Every structure is written in structure tokens, then in C-alpha cells.
């Protein structure tokens, strides 16, 4: 098991669990990163953070600090 923040660009993973109870983590789930969803990491911003992912057919950006709370395999 890994975190979404460890995934390299162009790799596709499946979400196992979204942890944390902050409103930001809740927003991340509402934007479509939920259990069982396929997420592709598209790229990492030029300064190393945030990351861009493709989820449910659109592009979403989130920071590594939040991505690290998304368990994937």
C-alpha cells in the first residue's frame, strides 16, 4: 500500500481509503477521489508541489500533503 503522493507521473492507481476528517479531505472525496476509483497522476508542478491527477475523466490538482492521506494500490 502506498500514498497517492508517492505515485509517479503517468501511473494509474486505485483508491483504497481516504483518511482524515478535515474539510479539505472531505472536498477531495466530493471531487471524486473515493474508494475504488482509478486515479492517474498526470504531473507534478514545476516547483515539486502540488500534483495534477486525472479522476473520473477530468483534471484535478491537490497538494502532496493531502495526497499523502489517500491510500492507493
Amino acid at each position, binding site marked *: 500500500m502506498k500514498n497517492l503522493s508517492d505515485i509517479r507521473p503517468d501511473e494509474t492507481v486505485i483508491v483504497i481509503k481516504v483518511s482524515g476528517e478535515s*474539510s*479539505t479531505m472531505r*472536498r477531495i472525496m*466530493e*471531487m471524486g477521489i*473515493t474508494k475504488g476509483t482509478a486515479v492517474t497522476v498526470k*504531473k507534478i508542478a514545476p516547483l515539486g508541489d502540488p500534483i*495534477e491527477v486525472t479522476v473520473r475523466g477530468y*483534471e484535478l490538482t491537490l497538494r502532496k500533503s493531502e495526497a499523502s492521506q489517500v491510500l492507493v494500490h
Partner: protein
Amino acid sequence: MKRTIALVGNPNSGKTSIFNELTGSTQYVGNWPGVTIEKKEGTLRKNKHIKLVDLPGVYSLSPYSPEEIVTRDYLVSKEVDLIVNIVDGTNLERNLYLTSQLMETGTPVIIALNMIDAVKRSGASIDSDKLSLLLGMPVIETSAVKGTGLENLVNTIADEHVTASKQFEYSPEVESALSGITALLPDAIAQHARRWHAIKLFERDQNVLIRMQLSDEVKNKIEHIIATTEASLDDTSEGIITNDRYFAISNIVSQCSIQAKIQGKLTSSDKIDKVVTNRWIAIPIFFVVMWGIYYIAIQGIGELTIGWMEWLFADFIGANIRLLLESAGTSAWLTNLVVEGLIGGVGSVLSFVPQMMILFFFLSLMEDSGYMARVAFIMDRVFRKFGLSGKSFIPMLIGTGCSVPAIMASRTIENLRDRRMTVMLVPFIPCGAKLPVFALLTASFFSGSAWVASSMYLIGIIMVIISGIVLKRTKAFAGESAPFVMELPSYHMPRIKQVAIHMWERSKMFIKKAGTIIALASVLIWIAQSIDWTFASADPSQSILASVGKILAPLFVPLGFGTWQATVAIITGLMAKETVVSTLQIVLGTNGADIIGLHDVFSPLSAYAFMIFILLAAPCIAAIGATYNEMKSKRWTFAAVLFQTSVAYIMALFVFQFGSLLIR
């Protein structure tokens, strides 16, 4: 009977275009009570008995941002007879998430499946009849850009037989928890709203919980139900229900849509993106783009149009009105008041309008094409260092033109704390109106050296950063750092109509301010500098304005510019920053283009301290007004102005005192 229809949809779903098409020119734009969120209303073009309300673009109905709270409260307020949910067909799953929450409210919903042309072009397809069947609500295919399907949409809206849609069935665990909670609800809650309240209580929604005023016994029972469900599914209640909603949606989407599967082939959006967010050249590209925009807007066309506008107001309108008034036998004093005070004052502000419109044109172009979102993506890392997010960068960028639209642009920031901080810090960025002040003093004291003006940008940016770090440590701004979860919309060719509307809406408000507050302030200041306390006409140095300046001047002695002339310039600068220049001209007297007494009032060091003070102190009235509009609180507005002025005072003091030591 008048019916009320609410338009709801995700940001970028084309909601505003559909609203404009449906209502034509019958719109009314106001604010939601108590918040700074725009409320747009209109009546249906073909049926004046149907009122349309355009709600803010939101991703969900959770109380995450002020926009979502407004939308949600309005939708459950019984005022709405029907919800028209604009769904972006190219992004079906995520858009249907909001739909699932709309269905829960118990209000009838119809779907406008928008951008259907783009769906077909991409090679995908959506069976809208099947979607309608599965969701249990009418689904109308539309394309706001092409204007198709709108008539069909209007007919469906006018049909009064649309009933509340069916509800998704969630997992057995959730359904049993919901029926347990529903049984505990007070009888006062209407039948159609019971499920919504049960779901909100299950999500532990504090807004709803407080409003319902349940007894402690009921609260404990509900909490027990939630905790049991959470334990059996090993997740938070919010997580459980979000998963369930998406599960139901994926199920429906897989039954009625065929995704375009083009493996390995890059769309043109991807190709553009590969270049502009490239690891190595993204930041250089961004600076080149910005430099280009400023070169064209401020240097190129800007210089030209400022000349024209000055000619228009001074030599054409001003001169002709003077002739007209003189031939009508108006007293010299009144003539001067109208020509120099009113037309001169308003003109000096309006002369920036063309330049600003060009700037806004480019900024709107960046926004509409999708590039602006990438800029926030690229710059987020820098901004989070001092507690803000990449989203704050956009207002700062607009602030280099004018703080007023920049402060308004802070609305895209969901988090209220970040929004407030951005509004407070944007005026530190040197706006277009401060440039003439820097130009005047740099030419006079530093032989026009370019580093002096550049240093103002640098000081402005540094003050934004330091203030961000310091404010983050205060109670009002403490807490987790600004979140950054943002959709990156696909690039597309900017629609000229959209860009033009955007540009005009931003400029309009600037012009409106010039015609109202600035006109009034110009007249008052002109009167104050032309009469003394006996109301007899007087030399500027004996005027009411001068005597006020003399009272306040000692405040600025430690800063090196404690003269009444400089003080008066600071006061009039509140009206509009460029009036600092015209005030110095009036009170010191001019010889051609030169201001005669400038060197009597300032030394090079105090001139520099003065520039810093002008840069950082309370912005102009228009910007303070915009601050109030966004903060919707006198206390916060006062705090912002006090903070800015204190920072300005401390910085100018520091520079002058340390500078004096060094020079000695």
C-alpha cells in the same frame, strides 16, 4: 401564480451562459443578504410569470464555502418550485455528484445536459433518455454556446407537472441508519424534507444540527446510530455517504454513456498543457506572458490612451465647459470648481480606464482560456510558504492593474480566512495609479533611475509575504494552511463574447466609482483647498485643507515628510492615488512640467520614505469600498485599513530613521 426556478451547477458548466440565454436582458444583479455573493435574478424571456435565480457555481452542497451555504439554504427554503441543474456532459460523473445532493433536497429537479456538442465531438455518447429514466427526472440536451436545446428546456421548465424525483438507494447500512434517524425527527419537518434532514444529521452537519434545536436525548440517539454505522463500515459518516453517492452515480453513468477511449493519443488540451506547465519552462513562459501583457497594456496602448483621455478631459470637455460657463456669466469660482475640481478629478481617474480595460481584456483571456488555473497550479508552492494558496495569486496579479477588481477577484477563494487575508494584502501590490507618484519623485530625486520604481514592486511583494507570515500567527487567521484543491478545466479557445462581458463587468464598476464617490470627493477637496475657514476664497497655503494638513503634519515628522504639503497630498491620495501628484502640483505650484518647491519639501531620503508610505498605506476610497463589499463588515474593513496604514508608517519610519543614520 409566479413560479421560482433555481439554476444550479458546477463552476464551468456553462450555467451563466444558459441563464443569459433564458432571461435575455431582464436581469437583476444584487447580493445575497449578509454575504458578498452575487445574486442574479431574471424572468424567463417567453414567460414573465417564471422567475429564474442564478445560484453561484458549486461542486457540492456541503458547507465548505460561503457559496455552498447560500445555495443550500436557498434550495431548502421552500421558495424554489423547481431546480434546473446544469450538467457538463463532458464531465458527467463529477457533475452528477451535485445532482445527487439536489435530489436529496426533495425539490423537483430537471437536468440540462449541457455541452452536448463537445461530448459528440470527442467521440463519446450519452443516452439521455436512459439517463432520464435512471435518475427519474427530465433530461434535456443543450448547448449554450450553439444555442441548441434551449427551447426544449424552456418548455420543460414551463411544464408544471414535473414532480420530485426519486431518491438514490444507498447501501443497506446507510439506509437503515437513515430510517432510524428519520424516525427521530420532529414532526414539524415536512414529509418531502425528512430524508434531506436525516442525511444532513448523518453527515454531522453542524449548521443543520444547530438550527434544528434537538433535545440532548435525541442527539445522543442519533449519534449512537451514526457511530454504529461508522464502526461497521470502518469510515467516517461523511466518507460513507460520499462513497455511496458516487457508487450510485458510477452505476448509472456506466449504463448510459460510452466514454471516448483514445489511448495514447494526446488531445490538443494535453499538448498545450505539456508546454505551459513543463517542469523547466513553465515559470519562464509565465513571466514572458505577464511581461507581454503589461508591456502592451501599460506601455504600449496605455501611454497612448492616457494621452488621449487627458486631452479629452482637460482640453476638450474641460475647456469647452469653461467657455460655456463663462459665457453664461457663472462666477469664476464656480467655473473653477466645475472644471478643475469635478472634471479634473473625475478625469484623472477615468484616464486610466482604457489602459485598465486592455489589462482586463488580457486577464479575462487568461481566465477564459484555462491558463489562469494553471498559473495558480504553478505558483501554489510559493504562496503556501506564507499561508496562502495559488488561488490568491490571481487577485495579486490583477492588483498590479487596480486593487478594486483584484479585491473582487478574491471571490474565487473558498476559504473565508484566505479570502480576507488576500483582500487585506492585495493593496500592497503597486497599482497603476501609484505609478505616476513614483515616476514624479524618481525623476526629481533619483534622476529617473529604474531601480527606484522596481524597488517599490519588490517592497510591495516582500510586505505581502511578511504580512502573510505574521498574520497567520494571529488569532483571526490561525489554523490549518489554506487548502488547494482545484479543478483544472480543459483549455479552449476563449469565447470573445465571454471575455468582453468579463472585461466590461470589471471596468464598469471602476467607472461607476469615478462617477459617484470620486466625483463627490474631488469637489469637496477642491473646495477645501480653495477657501479658508471664513469661507472666503484663499490661497492654497491658507486654505482649510492646508490647516488640516498643518494639524496632522507632526505625525509625519519622524518619517521625514512632516510638512503640510506632503500631508495634504497623502489625504487627497485617499481619493485616488494619482491625485497625490496633482495635489503636489496645486500646493507647490508648477513651472511647466516641473513642480517648483519639491526640493524644499523633500530630501531624496524622505522622498523615498514618502513613496513607501504611499505604496503601503490605506488604498483609495474605491478600494476601501471594494474591501467593505467583500468583507461585509465595518470591523474587518477598519482593521484592514488600520493594518495597511500601520505597516506603511512603520516601514517609512524604519527607512527614514535608518537611512538618516547611514547617511550621517
